[in-house]
């Protein structure tokens, strides 16, 4: 897809990040054809559909054009715009591992007009895909560091790709701690995946739920309540956050309390996105466009605007 080449030019550091991945994967540099039309989706087929919970499902996609599919590159933390015929587009993060998975996985929660419609699709159905867009997680900065991942609700989805990425290259990272908070214990997705990660060396997985249940052995309360169980070492720990902004704001405060610098805390933000290329203006956050300058930001880039209500 032409998008890959363009985003390398669009966003210097993330482009470089994902480019280095694709070079390793394919043994050649990414394609350099010029961007043709930034608005135009491409046809994709749903190869498999997985129901994760009552309201959450995963679509595994393949671009209909084989050459485009083969050339498609992305970095963990980037997103695609998925288009439902006759209805519209939504930004959905890519859950796959950029080097190991052939299909493009998108985990989606039914929350509105477009996602309700996409939820009715099944394997073999078609939708539109354009992307990938935005700047993903800081993969190079993570190398050799301890990594703390704090997610809330479906914020776990944009993090799955980077967790998979680290687990498949486990020796290149220090201690990995994954904290996942949910509202209701039934909301916890991917138990098997978390268990597999927890079994990896130097890897801890802790859960919290605002509402627990009889079979919920983990923490009850906000995800920041798990912080008493961890001791991240400032200076060698990077934190990756994804979830509702209130949850991320509380987490940032807790991490600062533990001595982490804002430059060591990375957040994936969410705003309304229509064009995904920094033109429609919906995703503005101060002087940033979340769709192209983010969605992943270092906290130092967006403080003190982050956590201002209604900004």
């Amino acid at each position: 897809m032409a998008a890959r080449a363009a985003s390398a030019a669009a966003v210097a550091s993330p482009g470089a990040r994902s480019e280095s991945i694709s070079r390793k994967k394919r043994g050649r540099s990414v394609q350099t054809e010029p961007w043709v039309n930034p608005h135009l989706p491409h046809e994709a087929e749903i190869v498999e559909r997985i129901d994760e919970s009552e309201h959450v499902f995963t679509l595994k996609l393949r671009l209909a054009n084989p050459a485009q599919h083969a050339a498609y590159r992305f970095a963990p933390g980037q997103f695609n715009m998925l288009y439902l015929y006759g209805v519209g587009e939504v930004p959905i993060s890519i859950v796959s591992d950029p080097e190991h998975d052939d299909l493009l996985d998108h985990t989606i929660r039914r929350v509105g007009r477009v996602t309700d419609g996409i939820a009715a699709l099944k394997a073999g159905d078609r939708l539109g895909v354009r992307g990938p867009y935005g700047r993903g997680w800081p993969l190079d900065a993570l190398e050799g560091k301890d990594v703390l991942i704090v997610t809330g609700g479906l914020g776990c989805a944009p993090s799955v790709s980077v967790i998979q990425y680290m687990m498949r290259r486990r020796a290149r990272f220090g201690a990995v701690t994954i904290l996942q908070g949910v509202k209701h214990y039934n909301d916890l997705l991917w138990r098997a995946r978390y268990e597999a990660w927890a079994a990896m060396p130097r890897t801890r997985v802790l859960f919290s739920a605002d509402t627990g249940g009889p079979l919920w052995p983990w923490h009850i309360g906000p995800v920041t309540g798990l912080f008493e169980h961890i001791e991240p070492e400032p200076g060698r720990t990077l934190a990756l956050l994804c979830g509702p902004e209130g949850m991320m704001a509380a987490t940032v405060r807790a991490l600062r309390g533990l001595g982490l610098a804002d430059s060591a805390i990375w957040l994936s933000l969410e705003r309304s996105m229509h064009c995904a290329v920094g033109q429609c203006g919906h995703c503005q956050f101060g002087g940033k466009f979340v769709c192209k300058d983010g969605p992943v930001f270092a906290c130092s880039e967006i403080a003190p605007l982050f956590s201002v209500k209604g900004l």
Partner: protein
Amino acid sequence: MPVRVDIEAPVTETRFLPRADLQRLLDVLAEAGYECIGPRVRDGAIVYDPVTRVSELPHGVTDRQGPGEYRLQAGAGGRCFAWANGPQALKPLLFTPQESLWTVRRDAQGRLAFIPAPPVARPVAVLGVRACDLAALRLQDAHFRDGPRPDPAYSARRDALFLIAVHCTHPAATCFCVSTGDGPRADFGYDLALSELDDGFLVEAGSVAGGVILRRLPTVEATTDQRQVAAREIESGARAQQRALPGTDLRDTLFGRLEHPRWEEVAQRCLSCANCTSVCPTCFCYSEHDVPSLDGTESTHTRQWDSCFTFGHSYIHGGAVRGGTRERYRQWLTHKLGGWHDQYGRSGCVGCGRCITWCPVGIDITEEARAVCAD
């Protein structure tokens, strides 16, 4: 097709075109293949519409503007550019209020074919462009055309545009382009620039294409006296401006005062009607919508102007990020005068004053900025 060939040396001197020969300018542009858009009076306002005869221009018409007020009146002698600006800028000609981006067809097997809307651009010459609007155009260019992912439709229309500026000598009471550094004299971005005198026009070429048109006009060399009169009129226009922003870079001040009580005060008056964003020559927000055909075989994906003053603008699942007018006005002002510095290296305000004039309740951006920035 319009003439855009570099076969002659650029015209650098200022020429004089007698008023009786202004029609030649329109004729030469038409001969060169341009549709000419210029100022005309319609619905009680000066708007940009197609013009073929100079008699269609607003002769003897001037404007009276104030917060929430716009009136045309007689009193400009025989001049036809003795007004400040109307509700439109160049924006609608390039970033159109609504257009198709692409169409998708679905066949009986459910396969989708995405067809981009071909960029359609006809050569257009715009007569009577103000310095503030040229500054705004440069910002829109930076946003839609000059980034890594240029918008095809905007870029095509922009390439086919020929601009005839008129140095502004009649700023309205709502104008403040001196304080933003964008006027009243047009210094860049035009193909031709005119200074209107009582008996004719000083003409300067700003591009090779402009020079080609200028050579075809029955001009004579401008006299020193004519040039001095024109310069004095621009100067006196600059001095006549009554409003000003409190500085050209308010970024840190505004973002440092996000909880200032003035945001709530202005929200009590603001109707969240989005007029200010519609008339603003630099506002670029749009939303995208699908328009499916009745038989279900195809759907057209369109975009149309949107505004940060609408509820839906910041909607994500679970509600709007900026649910109230306080948050929306704050977003607009802090973005326009603050966030723009990060995005495009300068303020997003060019001092045209349209947002003051066309606000139904007369909210004044200069007054609000001053109030928030005051200690």
